[in-house]
Structures are given as C-alpha cells and as structure tokens.
C-alpha cells in the first residue's frame, strides 16, 4: 500500500470498516511510515474533538419564543381537527 492508497482507505480504517486483508496492508504501511501514522492520529483526534464539543446553550429568550409559537400552532391544529 502506498501513502496515496492509504489516504483513499482512511475513512474505512478509522471507522473500522476495512476487511481483514486490507486492514493488514494498511497496518503494515503504517508501521513503516511515520507521516501516515501521525495523519491517522490527527484524523482520530479531529473527530474526537468535535464529538467532545460542548453543546451550544439554547438562548433563554428563544426557548420561550419557540414554546409560545409551538403552543399557538398546536391550538390551531387541534382546534381545527
């Protein structure tokens, strides 16, 4: 496997979807190629960092407004049915 081929197979490897022979070829390349090792680590860290991101707090004013809008629409929907 070359660096280019590794790049093409990166998603499947990181997501654990490579079949066994392909996974071995990937791992063999990684063992001898430190730039690719670091790229794979970076990709994993990038995904973890986004997953670990703090939730955005819902603005209070919007929460109230949303609740009122939905209540009004609810009344209209169930009043007419």
């Amino acid at each position, binding site marked *: 496997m070359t*660096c280019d081929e590794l790049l093409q197979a*990166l*998603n499947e490897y990181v997501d654990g979807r490579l079949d066994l022979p392909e996974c071995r070829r990937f791992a063999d390349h990684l063992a001898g190629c430190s*730039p690719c090792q670091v790229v794979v680590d*970076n990709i994993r*860290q990038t995904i973890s960092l*986004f997953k670990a991101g703090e939730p955005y707090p*819902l603005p209070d004013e919007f929460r109230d407004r*949303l609740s009122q*809008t939905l209540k009004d629409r609810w009344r209209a929907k169930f009043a007419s049915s």
Partner: protein
Amino acid sequence: MSDSSAAHDELLSRSRGGDYASFAALVEGLQGRVYGLARRITGRREDAEDVVQQTFLSVLEHLDTFRGDGPIAGWVLRIAANHGLKLLRKRRALPTVPLDAAAENEAVGLPHPDYVAPWRDAPAELAQRAEVRQLLDEALSELDDKYRVVFVLRDVEGFSVRETAEALGLTESAVKVRLLRARLALRERLTRALGDEAARIYPTHDHG
C-alpha cells in the same frame, strides 16, 4: 443515533392523542440537540433559531406521518438537517443544484496532508477551552457547505453513512467521499493550530 428512547416513543404517542404537555416534553428533550446541529450547519445563532423553529413546526405538522422506522431523534435531526440546507441555499442564493452533482469528480485528486504533526494536547482536554471551541466553529464554517453538512451528521451526530445518505438524498459513495474531504480539511486546519511545531514531520510520498 444511539439514544432511541422508549420515553420519546411514549411522548410521541401521547402527543398524537392531543396531549400538549407530552409534545412540549418531547420538544424540550430534543431542542438542545437540534439547536446544536443547526448551529454547526448554519454557523449563526439567528439562522439556527430559524431552523429549530421550522423543524419543530414540521414535526408538529407531520406528527401523524412519522413511520417509526428508527428513533424519533433521528427523524427530527433529519428534518433539521434539511431545513438547515434549505436555509444555506437561500442565504447564498445558490441555484438548487442536486447535492449529488459533480460527486464523481470529487473522488479524484484528494488533497495531500501538508501540515503533519502530533497534537500538543489530548482532545478531551482541548474541548474544555473556549479558544478551541472558537477554532472548531471557524474550521467548520470554512468548510464548503456540502462537506460540512455530511461531517456534522456523520461525525458529530453519529449518523451512519447510510443514514447520512438517506437524510441528505445522496448516494453512500458521495457521502464517503465528502466525509473524507471534510475530515482531511478539518485535520489540516486543526493541526496547524494544535500541532506541535517542534515535532512536525515533512511527508515525502517517495516510498511505497
């Protein structure tokens, strides 16, 4: 989408029976997640609020038609992703070309990683810092819309490739290609900011 919850199903079924309190509880339980998705896709608070409101109005409208073929959270997030896309298109006055157009060309010529260095700190620790959160927002907003939406659904919200494809009306192969491009672009951007310059490696690509 792991949090398929029996509680949500129960709330849905009572909502259908006309119980407003159950509907309100369902909204309460999902609105934070929907808002997060909308913020990441649109990058703006006001736009995200629009998307959240449109999403729950759609949910209310289609309360009776949800087929229950998966967790309700997934259904709601799918609706939100589509409202988000609609808003992006409107905002940029883009012609509504199918999302799939030109996908075939995207598989060739992947950008090579350029800045390659181990990160100075672990993601769990970085995630606590306000300036890193800002960096993540910036990095996401710089991505092309079509890559960002795929990345947010797949890697932030945890949709599978198939669920992402179904939600966006794309083929699975288009999702895979876009996800790879998104991941590579974000890796490049974040590593420039978070990588250890002293340990930077210069890839040569001259070996097999």
